[in-house]
């Protein structure tokens, strides 16, 4: 197999990255690997980085740039949705509320779900429950509509159950 960079020498280093079934392979000869600093440079992806496992965290979502435009700005930290599309990072926790419309489909695309199912600090669990239970049926139905529109079916089912429960209580 020839080197992907110089197309002349035999490739001896193979970098493989497989994410969600999509295989990306890079075949490089020893000379090019050295020239590109893959072996010892501190800037590029190299063996030290690989061994140190630096690549497992915080890779910016490549889909962020292709998101729909929303004229939104986070009231808490000032980051705009445009900024987010550019840097792939949110500015603060409030951004998640401010950009909910744009983020929900992105999260579904990245994770195949947009509903947390893991652990939570106890206090936070309590807070969120009371908040939702305190909400009016109208508000919840509005949320349900948004969820269905965004094809967030798990979230829709959850909201539907809360609404049902509330309606039962009323009767």
């Amino acid at each position, binding site marked *: 197999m020839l080197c992907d960079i110089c197309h002349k020498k035999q490739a*001896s280093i*193979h*970098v*493989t*990255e*497989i*994410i*969600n*079934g*999509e*295989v990306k392979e890079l075949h490089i000869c*020893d000379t090019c*690997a050295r020239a590109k600093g893959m*072996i*010892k440079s*501190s800037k590029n992806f190299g*063996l*030290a*980085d*690989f*061994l*140190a*496992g*630096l690549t*497992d*965290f*915080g*890779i*910016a*979502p490549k889909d*962020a740039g292709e998101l729909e435009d929303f004229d939104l700005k986070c009231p*808490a930290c000032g*980051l705009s949705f445009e900024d987010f599309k550019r*840097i*792939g*990072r*949110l*500015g*603060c*926790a409030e951004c*998640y509320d401010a950009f909910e419309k744009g983020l929900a489909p*992105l*999260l579904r695309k*990245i*994770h*195949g*779900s*947009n*509903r*947390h*199912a*893991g*652990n*939570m*600090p106890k206090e*936070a*669990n309590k807070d*969120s*429950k009371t908040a*939702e239970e305190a909400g009016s049926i109208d508000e919840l139905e509005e949320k349900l509509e948004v969820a269905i529109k965004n094809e967030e079916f798990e979230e829709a089912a959850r909201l539907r159950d809360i609404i049902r429960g509330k309606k039962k209580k009323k009767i």
Partner: protein
Amino acid sequence: MRLNDLLNQTSEWLKATGTESEIVMSSRVRFARNIKGLAFSHWADEKQKKEILTKTKQALLKNKYLNNSLFLVMDELNDLDKQFLVERHLISRELTADGGCKAVDVSEKELFSIMINEEDHLRLQVMRSGLELKESLRLLDKLDSELRRNFDYACNSKWGYLTACPTNVGTGMRASVMIHLPALVMTKRIGKVLESIGRINLAVRGLYGEGTEASGNFFQISNQITLGHSEQELVDDIDRVIKQVVEYEKGARELLLKNSRHQLEDEIWRAYGILTNARIVSSLEAIGLLSAIRLGVNLSIINKVDIKSINELFITTQPAHLQKIEGKDLNPQERDLKRGDLLRDKLK
């Protein structure tokens, strides 16, 4: 504890004490956490970053799992020490960038390391030898529970822990395993195995070579998603897949011993011959040959050296480690010489 004390100890995860540690080098679990009410570190201004550092430092200093830890403010370190910490897997490359009130807290035996002001306020990490993801998760949960008595974390019931990058939201957890698969590479079965792993919400990253140019044959497998599944489910998934891959690797090793024992032994002994005699050894060459020797030790072809010493050499032959051991800066040529010396000394 002081930074130079690390030089005289072996990180827990290199000791080859964990489950399947012949094939599974290490298990690591990381949590991304942010304090409620403060901008994420990459977007915070200097004043906020200072506040984040002060708050987290106070909390870490009284954490019972971090007694006698090594707390380091990154801006007070030189480049060599920063690189040294990267090579030891205690910090990420991002944490070595100048400014930003960055810090790291390393527990006594390097079991835990906590990064402050990377892109999130806190990145908690635990690292263990072998396939020990479940135990790692249990340990990190303990540290995390202790820590969150000090402040409220940014989170909500819908999206879980809120992180700077939306790829980490939810559990905020990355669990990963570093696995050594030389026989699957030699028997050319690796492609198929990796491809099948990549299909199931796991990310696989690897750097591998052919024949004598083999560059480690290490692969890292980690969870690709963080939202929609519990920590336990995500860890169980990786655990299950790794156990399967370990079986494939064992099968490939048996096949090599059965069908091409002479070639295998030749390759392993040649690697040993070079590293016990060569004077100038590049980093890449060392890693490739150490990989072959590691396989030889696991298959009892070589008995002159133990697996823990080999594991250690993957780290101590890296540039910053060589320079710290030598106690001075070395240029690349000097490093290759020093690397040769170290390898001859440790392998004989």
